[in-house]
């Protein structure tokens, strides 16, 4: 059995490592590019959400490269994501691919099923060995996210454009090679110091923007037009609401972002008092939190037709007004042009600077 899986941000690094440790035969599809998107758009239903289209593109490329099994995660919420694996299974089989779909449903839904499927993927290892491997790789995944968090904060200060991006790539390469928990710890330090060593101008007083929204749109730079790198190079300090390990982690505590889900639900309560699927409620919670922390603005990213984020968007006018924080919503799919996104981002940055200038002049600065 040769396994493939779709891309999402740095997921490929983490799963490659895990599968190697577990002696699983796997094939990594090429990174998401226009080619994968075009393939997905061709075979997915027009009104499906964008992540489904892109991941179908990834899987086609993975199957073409020789895979005969696909690993996907399922879901039990009202968001359509929980149904992706079923749809992918059907579409890819209709296209004539012969493969087996292994869908990992959330363990709390059916722990036995989860264990059985893990055993199926890593058939040469015992459950205990699988658990040990997951624990170590998890440490690496958290380290990768923590490094990314620093990149987002520090890029705003870099003296030479792209230096932080280069340092980040080097850091990831170091982390990739780390095997033992000790090496992972060392690699994390090394990656952080690489980013720290980038020449900075600390006199800058950058705008602070929080990025919220649907996790796939946030985590996959190719589909969000590298928005974080673009904003960072424009000298903007960024914090992102969701990291890969926060999203995958079983606990309510979001270790990387630093706010747990109960706290977010509480923050969202005056505007959205219950779970609506996906990140709908946490998006609202994060916007409130960013406003309370004095951020200049928030950018919400969502794929076209994303139901939970549309619900979050519908309460935005009230939040913006009551908490006095501008929010820019960007809706992404294969029809979205980069030029349109850049125009809106430029205008949003101007708007935030003008607001800040006005606030400063109001207090006599």
């Amino acid at each position, binding site marked *: 059995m040769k396994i493939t899986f779709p891309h999402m941000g740095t997921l490929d690094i983490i799963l490659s490592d895990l599968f190697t440790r577990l002696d699983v035969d796997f094939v990594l599809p090429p990174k998401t*590019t226009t080619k994968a998107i075009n393939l997905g758009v061709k075979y997915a239903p027009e009104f499906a959400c964008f992540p489904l289209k892109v991941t179908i593109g990834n899987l086609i490329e993975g199957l073409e490269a020789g895979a005969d099994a696909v690993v996907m995660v399922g879901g039990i919420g009202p968001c359509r994501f929980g149904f992706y694996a079923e749809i992918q299974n059907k579409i890819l089989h209709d296209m004539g691919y012969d493969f087996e779909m292994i869908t990992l449903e959330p363990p709390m839904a059916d722990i036995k099923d989860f264990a059985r499927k893990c055993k199926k993927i890593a058939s040469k290892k015992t459950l205990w060995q699988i658990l040990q491997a997951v624990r170590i790789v998890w440490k690496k995944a958290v380290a990768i996210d923590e490094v990314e968090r620093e990149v987002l904060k520090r890029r705003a200060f870099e003296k030479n454009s792209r230096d932080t991006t280069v340092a980040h790539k080097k850091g990831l390469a170091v982390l990739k090679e780390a095997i033992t928990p000790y090496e992972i710890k060392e690699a994390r330090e090394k990656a952080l110091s690489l980013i720290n060593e980038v020449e900075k101008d600390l006199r800058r007083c950058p705008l602070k923007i929080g990025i919220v929204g649907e996790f796939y749109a946030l985590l996959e730079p190719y589909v969000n037009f590298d928005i974080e790198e673009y904003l960072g190079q424009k000298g903007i300090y960024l914090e992102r609401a969701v990291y890969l390990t926060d999203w995958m982690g079983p606990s309510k505590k979001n270790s990387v972002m630093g706010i747990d889900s109960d706290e977010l639900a509480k923050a969202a309560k005056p505007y959205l008092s219950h779970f609506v699927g996906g990140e709908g409620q946490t998006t609202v919670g994060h916007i409130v939190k960013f406003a309370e922390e004095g951020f200049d603005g928030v950018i919400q990213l969502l794929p076209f037709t994303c139901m939970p984020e549309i619900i979050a968007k519908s309460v935005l006018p009230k939040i913006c*007004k009551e908490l006095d924080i501008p929010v820019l919503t960007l809706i992404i799919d294969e029809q979205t042009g980069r030029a349109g996104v850049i*125009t809106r981002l430029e*205008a949003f940055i*101007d*708007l935030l600077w*003008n607001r800040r200038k006005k606030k400063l002049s109001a207090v006599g600065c």
Partner: protein
Amino acid sequence: MIGYLGVDVGSVSTNLVVIDEETNVVSYIYRRTMGDPIHAVQNGLRELKELLPAEIVINGAGTTGSARYLSGVVVGADIVKNEITAHAVAASHVAPDVQTVLEIGGQDSKIIILREGVAVDFAMNTVCAAGTGSFLDHQAERIGIPIEEFGNYALKSQNPAQIAGRCTVFAESDMIHKQQMGYHVEDIIYGLCQSLVRNYLNNVAKGKELMSPIIFQGGVAANLGIKKAFEETLGMEIMIPKHYSVMGAIGAALLAKEKAGNKIESSFKGFSTSDIDFKTSSFHCKGCSNNCEIVKIEVDGEVLARWGGRCGKWEIEQT
């Protein structure tokens, strides 16, 4: 005499404006882009020069619009700004107390909310261009009425027809249907205006608090039918600034003036730039699987600008 040049190259029109030290509009050009932004700017500069006093010295130049980077290279801009900011700057300049700017151009429409002279929110049409200038143009042509007359016809309407405005294709079928049923052409035209305004308010302006004073600008502001439909729907008075069609260019000129400050050094290449042969070419980068299309702008073999890549390795921008 000292002047500041503003250039706004959009999908449909290319506008050039020169303002003086007192920010009065000295002269302006509104012409079609015709899918060729470089020549539109060059020809526009040539025409503009004819209109300007001979002794004019351009102390700063700004570009805006969807071709702002390209036109920035062509004219030698001191500042390149997105059209949302440019429109906001121009609107709050002509009406300092403005709180809402409605802007409908050739292929995009936007709304800008200002409070006390500062833009606090904006939106731009995302998934649909229904109700923008291109569509009105097309319909005017189909009905056989000059676009300039479109608004006057709308004002004559007594019983506006209901036209489906969510999608331009369906709006067109609906208009044809109403024509075939025997409705008056003015009722159909005003019905169209009403449905476009509904569409704009339900999409672009969704969730925004529209407060008076309201300014309506962009090429479509020439259409009095749309203005009337806005006023009827909102129950508020709509102002149309004198130079409504070139407000983006005025904004760019104002920004150029602000940038120039007391400095006299402008990178403006002069009106003779209209004789330079700008060559554009493109190629696909093979560096990775992204296959980015890189665009190059050259003059006499010298590369002035290069862009289009995702990783930044080809990027050269002079402005």
